[in-house]
């Protein structure tokens, strides 16, 4: 096994770990969205729309970062 192969495998391992980490983060972002939806039923206020939009943006960006990592790493 050449040093180039070892380096390649090491970076592939890093990429895999990064993707797993980003995948877990997507789950966390989804939990935030879900929690916001559940709590909105408990408390109905006009200002909640902002929080809802922010939580969806957060989930969307985390999915984008996951695919960005999949493509460029």
């Amino acid at each position, binding site marked *: 096994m050449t040093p180039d192969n070892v380096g390649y495998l090491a970076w592939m391992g890093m990429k895999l770990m990064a993707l797993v980490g980003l995948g877990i983060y997507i789950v966390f972002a989804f939990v935030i969205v879900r929690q916001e939806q559940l*709590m909105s039923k408990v408390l*109905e206020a006009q200002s909640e729309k902002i929080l809802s939009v922010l939580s969806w943006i957060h989930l969307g960006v985390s999915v984008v970062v996951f695919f960005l990592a999949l493509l460029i790493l």
Partner: protein
Amino acid sequence: MPVLFEAPPTKKQSSKKGKPPVKIVSTVKLNTTPLTAYLMHPNDIRFETQDPDEEVILFMRQHIIVLIPKLIIGIIVFFAPLILFPILIRFLQSPVEIPGGYVIVGTVFWYLATFGFFLSMFMQWYFNIFIVTNHRIIDIDFLFFLYKKFGEAKIEKIQDISFRTGGITATVFNYGDVIIQTAGELPNLIFEKVPRPSEVVHILSDLTEDHKETGDV
């Protein structure tokens, strides 16, 4: 015709211990904003178990000042890649060069996680609410994701109301804990770090007194 006799104010109108009476019945209704921590007669607030004839008298969250330490941590975390990371890279001098893709994804993820931290902290504050209605008092705690606590006590079950405040920030910004002791097996409710605790106690006292006199507000 000159006024020869003016009737003294009635017991209801007169102030209690020199303080003006709290106006519980009001026609002025205001909308909440995302940063509202104290509002009487909110116009746009409804909660899950609200009865049709139930009116929200007071809506509270913890004082906005409790978010400041988290905001400071967030600002430090936000600026860390700009200041801390170049210094660390220069001192560590790793023989392995980090590919550009990792730098890009790492930086984007760092700011995303910082935003997520802010969002989750804010949601924890936002959904930690205290509501006083003409029938009951409600304490909704959003402790952490997927865990919420709903506590309530009927106005007639309230036995004792007190508040405690202490510390420099609590004194300067006028916030504290309101402790509501209830009758029987019901657990006591604590409104933690709410703005204007003395005013809250005053409102609750008036509500309980009115409830005892009339049976309802």
